[in-house]
């Protein structure tokens, strides 16, 4: 029996090896399936990305868009994921904000020993180094919560575009007037796994598919009579 099992494991491992590597095909999905711009001035931008999504999943892509350039961001996805994949663009900025940070720790428990003055007895327990009113260890521990106000760096997102308010458009083209760090958030509708929680989940294969984000860029064309003397 053991020999048979070894053979099965070996055979399946051999058969599946090339398929495992082929399984990474999503990596370049955007190059093969997203439509490029008709405008030949647009060039493929290295910040394009593809990934495997399950229904109900949301993922983000952080990119930088530069002043003086036009960008075209387009989306393509496997048909089984539906035609209403949500595509939002946020600006992401790091801001320093004051935050109250609570820390909990266990400390020795004390009780008051008001009767002593300097060194002395209080109900039979020693009370050290107290001047008139002091405290003495009970031998137990208590939870102590300390609060501290700290300046921390937080990432703040501001919504700039939501394709659900634009008839689920799968592409957007814009000029950039000042360099920005943008977050592109992709949400695949459905009641799939959602993404958080346990590492292993029950996912139907038909509930997964590739999503590609194609980013293209070009220098913003100068329009009008610039430099002509008019």
């Amino acid at each position: 029996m053991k020999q048979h099992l070894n053979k099965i494991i070996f055979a399946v491992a051999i058969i599946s090896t090339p398929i495992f590597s082929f399984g990474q095909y999503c990596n370049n999905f955007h190059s093969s399936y997203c439509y490029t711009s008709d405008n030949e001035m647009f060039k493929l931008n290295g910040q394009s990305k593809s990934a495997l999504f399950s229904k109900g999943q949301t993922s983000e892509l952080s990119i930088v868009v530069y002043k003086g350039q036009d960008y075209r961001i387009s989306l393509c996805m496997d048909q089984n994921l539906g035609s209403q994949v949500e595509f939002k663009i946020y600006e992401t900025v790091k801001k320093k904000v004051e935050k109250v940070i609570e820390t909990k720790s266990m400390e020795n428990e004390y009780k008051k020993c008001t009767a002593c003055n300097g060194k002395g007895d209080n109900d039979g327990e020693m009370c050290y180094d107290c001047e008139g009113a002091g405290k003495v260890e009970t031998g137990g521990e208590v939870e102590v919560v300390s609060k501290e106000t700290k300046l921390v760096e937080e990432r703040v997102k501001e919504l700039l575009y939501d394709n659900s308010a634009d008839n689920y458009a799968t592409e957007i083209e814009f000029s950039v007037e000042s360099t920005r760090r943008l977050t592109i958030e992709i949400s695949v509708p459905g009641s799939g796994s959602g993404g958080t929680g346990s590492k292993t989940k029950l996912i139907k294969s038909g509930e997964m598919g590739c999503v590609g984000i194609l980013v293209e860029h070009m220098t913003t064309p100068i329009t009008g009579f610039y430099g002509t003397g008019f």
Partner: protein
Amino acid sequence: MKKQSKLALALLISFPLVMFTSCGGNDDVEKMEEVVEAPVEEQQGNETYYQIPSPDEMFGFIKESGLAFNGELLNPIQNADKYVTPNRQALNFGIYSADLAYTASFEEFDKTIKYFGTIQKLADQIGISSAFDKALLERIQGSLDNVDSLVSVTNSSYFSVVEYLEKNEQGDKLGIIAVAGWIETVYVVANSANYKKDKAAIERLADQKLTLENLLDYLGKYSDNADVSQLLTSLRELEATYATLSEESSGSGISLKKKENGKMVLGGGSSIKITEDQFNAIKAKVSEIRNNIVNTEA
């Protein structure tokens, strides 16, 4: 014995699932839909991916902004043989990739061919030569008389490496290569631009503060890797230099709106300002990091 049975069963169950993850075409999706429901390892969580602009985007821009080519800023190809550890080879693969993009953008064809040969050699040493297939090499040879197509082909080689490393789940190596490429790009721009004359290039250099944030977030995922950790230390020093740059508000909030001409424009918000002293500090720090990478005596 029991363990082996489970393994065999898991492999048999996962076989059709793995086939599906290829995402190769929609016809297959229909066929597979009803077939399988089995535990699979989560393929992608709700995570954030941090992307790094490729060197050509910056070089294309600075060429248009009027900066001249300076061949002395390139890492000489003779140095390539002197990088013997895998980490230094990966770092300098990134440096040479940026140099390749620089020479291609400025139509330095002879240099482009030489630098392509060098990165091909280094690719072999760091185990990513499969990223350069025969068709790509033939395209390079066939593009020698056409700037646009040469730039396009050198970009293809860069994207091909990115794709190869992503496919093979070598995000740490990709991070090292991309960061080194970015460092070389910033080094070339900082050492080519004149603060008083080259306004557009200086602004672009200041804006790298945001790209650096993305790089740090990307590399942070692989900080357990000793080589990445070492690189992160250098980048954090550069981050501290960039942190002195101030932001100036435009007076209106950021927006992505349609203008009168029908064009969508991302405008408003704040912009990053850089003084001459800050420019010199960034130039000195980035040169220090870059020279440590290309140093052949390390």
